[in-house]
């Protein structure tokens, strides 16, 4: 039996793995891969083991439905012909519409070196600046990290004595990153008085373990975290940065209670608990707009953690693995308005590398742009809706099959220098881009040590403006008949583009589901199993209903790992060029049983 150490590449925790393969195979390949196991000899970030999707790594690597050949207009081809056809089409479009009519979208499944190479390719070979990271879940957190350095906030007072531990979890970490449970729960049960505080509108997998569940309104997480910071600052006269102090002074408790839906007393009690703890850990997990104004929530949560006088750690959890690495490369390369052009349907050709565009966000403008685009080339693992709409599909090698660097967390790089070779037919984005550049008459240089922007600057700039926009969006939800929020299942990962193909996910969560609160079900006369027309400003689909006690009031939730559900969240871009996501008003109509 041969062993190879690797890291899971499905989410941002990058759990260490051992891949085991047959001894008789001359090369360690996917074909000879027998099993995958958590590498207990190395600490994963949360001391966890493998979750349901991590256990599917072996299945993913050897999946019979993985794309093994390049496809040109749906016909099986070879890599040389696919590259040649791509080069010809791109050259034609550049000649007819100009270089700025071509866009390059990058996704999580690229290494930092590949992201840098894609930027060089766009600039030097195509002659355009249209390169963007397409990760609506994670991008706002990265902007908040780079443009607001609130790690400078000082603790309010001396470290409390004792060993009381408080974990503040914003969102549903246990579903999105199940390994988190292994560090949170032993702390909760380990010492008397330790607490788990959860901020979420639903009784999620995480909230069920909360000692204090600050059950907010849909999208109210940011307001509750702002309230926690305000209460902590008021109680201790904490030395906040001046801009943040001024902003908090301007926040009215009645407004926080109205948007957040949690009383001042409950917020103040939770803040007091955090201030009295000898250790505070804050987790923030944001899947597809669960947390409205997530950049703002990130900054409030970081300041709140740093105000606490005990030992403290702020743990923002990205949904996808290498989005931070790619974001930092693109941030160093400069601003790009590629997403604005994509939304405005100004691009004639699209190169989508390392992502399943339709699974990440199949919003109406993107669907329209894809439909009307003259040429699309994409790298994919499985045949999916993106592949269906692309002119050329290149079989992609995953992060576990290529050498390079990924950044699963801020400031922590993971260099993969010993990997299994790509499965038969799969090519790395680096190889594809090099071949394409050569075909277009250029030579791409080495991508070793790419330039990245990781240093933080600024303090609380822009927070007041973001709060105003956030408060205004809250008013829209107040008047809605029902509000739709994303619901995540632990057996799926992120956009579901990979996990929907896994055996275990297909058994446990094969299709999208609409969950409604008992109050809402009674009001709309819905029962379990009814089929309901779900319509929002983003689109309309039919989903089966599950009535649940986990939701309250006018809240409905839909499993967010399916493109049809993601489409329900309409696409809006803010002044920063970011996609604005959050809970949306929804109309539910029961279908006739006939």
């Amino acid at each position: 039996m041969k062993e190879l150490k690797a890291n899971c590449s499905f989410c941002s925790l990058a759990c260490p793995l051992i891949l085991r393969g047959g001894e008789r195979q001359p090369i360690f390949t996917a074909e000879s891969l027998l099993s995958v196991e958590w590498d207990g000899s190395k600490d994963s970030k949360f001391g966890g083991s493998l979750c349901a999707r991590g256990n599917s790594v072996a299945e993913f690597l050897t999946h019979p439905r993985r794309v093994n050949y390049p496809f040109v207009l749906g016909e099986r081809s070879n890599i040389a012909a696919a590259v040649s056809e791509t080069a010809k089409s791109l050259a034609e479009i550049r000649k007819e519409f100009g270089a700025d009519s071509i866009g390059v979208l990058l996704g999580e499944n690229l290494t930092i070196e590949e992201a840098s190479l894609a930027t060089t390719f766009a600039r030097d070979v195509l002659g355009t600046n249209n390169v963007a990271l397409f990760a609506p879940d994670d991008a706002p957190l990265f902007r908040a990290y780079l443009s607001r350095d609130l790690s400078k906030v000082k603790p309010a007072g001396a470290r409390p004595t004792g060993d009381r531990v408080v974990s503040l979890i914003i969102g549903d970490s246990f579903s999105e990153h199940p390994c988190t449970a292994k560090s949170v729960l032993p702390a909760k049960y380990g010492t008397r008085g330790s607490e788990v505080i959860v901020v979420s509108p639903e009784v999620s997998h995480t909230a069920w373990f909360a000692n204090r569940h600050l059950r907010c309104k849909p999208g109210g997480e940011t307001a509750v975290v702002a309230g926690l910071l305000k209460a902590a600052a008021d109680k201790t006269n904490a030395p906040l940065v001046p801009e943040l102090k001024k902003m908090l002074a301007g926040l009215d408790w009645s407004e926080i209670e109205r948007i957040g839906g949690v009383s001042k007393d409950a917020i103040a009690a939770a803040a007091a608990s955090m201030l009295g703890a000898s250790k505070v850990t804050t987790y923030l997990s944001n899947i597809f707009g669960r947390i409205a104004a997530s950049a703002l929530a990130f900054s409030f949560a970081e300041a709140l953690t740093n105000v606490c006088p005990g030992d403290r750690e702020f743990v923002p959890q990205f949904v996808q693995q290498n989005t931070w690495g790619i974001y930092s490369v693109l941030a160093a390369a400069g601003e790009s308005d590629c997403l604005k052009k994509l939304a405005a349907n100004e691009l004639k050709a699209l190169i989508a590398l390392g992502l399943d565009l339709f699974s990440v966000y199949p919003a109406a403008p993107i669907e329209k742009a894809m439909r009307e685009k003259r040429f699309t080339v994409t790298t994919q693992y499985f045949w999916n809706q993106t592949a269906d709409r692309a002119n050329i599909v290149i079989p992609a090698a995953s992060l576990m099959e290529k050498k390079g660097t990924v950044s699963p967390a801020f400031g922590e790089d993971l260099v993969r220098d010993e990997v299994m070779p790509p499965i038969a037919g799969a090519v790395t984005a680096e190889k594809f881009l090099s071949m394409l550049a050569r075909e277009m008459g250029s030579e791409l240089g080495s991508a070793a040590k790419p330039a990245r922007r990781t240093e933080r600057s600024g303090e609380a700039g822009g927070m007041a403006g973001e709060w105003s926009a956030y408060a205004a969006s809250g008013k829209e939800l107040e008047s809605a008949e029902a509000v739709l929020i994303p619901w995540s299942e632990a057996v799926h990962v992120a956009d579901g583009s990979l996990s929907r193909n896994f055996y275990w996910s297909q058994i446990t969560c094969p299709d999208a589901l609409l969950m409604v609160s008992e109050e809402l079900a009674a009001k709309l006369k819905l029962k379990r199993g009814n089929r309901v027309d779900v319509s929002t400003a983003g689109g309309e689909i039919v989903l089966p209903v599950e009535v649940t006690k986990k939701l309250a009031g006018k809240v409905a939730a839909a499993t967010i790992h399916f493109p049809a559900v993601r489409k329900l969240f309409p696409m809006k871009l803010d002044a920063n060029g970011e996609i604005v996501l959050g809970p949306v008003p929804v109309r539910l109509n029961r279908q006739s049983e006939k």
Partner: protein
Amino acid sequence: MEKRVYINMNLCTSCRSCAAACAMGHQGQGHLKHGTIQDKATVPLHCRHCAEPLCLNVCPQEAIKKDENGTIIRMRNLCIGCKSCIQSCPFGVMLPYSTWHTSPKCDLCADRLGEGKVPRCVATCTSGALVFEELATIEKKFRRTVEGGRYFVRFMPNR
């Protein structure tokens, strides 16, 4: 003393990693299912490896045997997939579906126990809820935690 898989209900997050690991480790045929208790909890249900197993008694092919450790194992080459054992199990922990022609039956990952490792479900548990211990150790631990007042049983409401 024989080791068995126990679950700490305080820690289980219903993430189903254990069942996924079981299925992946047994060529797609999982031996572990998640059940609901009194419509309140969703928890993994393991084979008890009973002292007097009914599944062993009813098997017409004598394909189910008790090994020297008390583990109830199903001999794959003898099983004809008649599902008598599934019907007879009083705890309902044998799965009513199978990928292969044989009945799914927990063997405590005999291949791993031979290497000194714990079963796959225990190794992969993301919250530390599953443990592989002797009964005496569990009883001791449980008594201590109850007296200490730190643990109490909570059920996660089912959908």
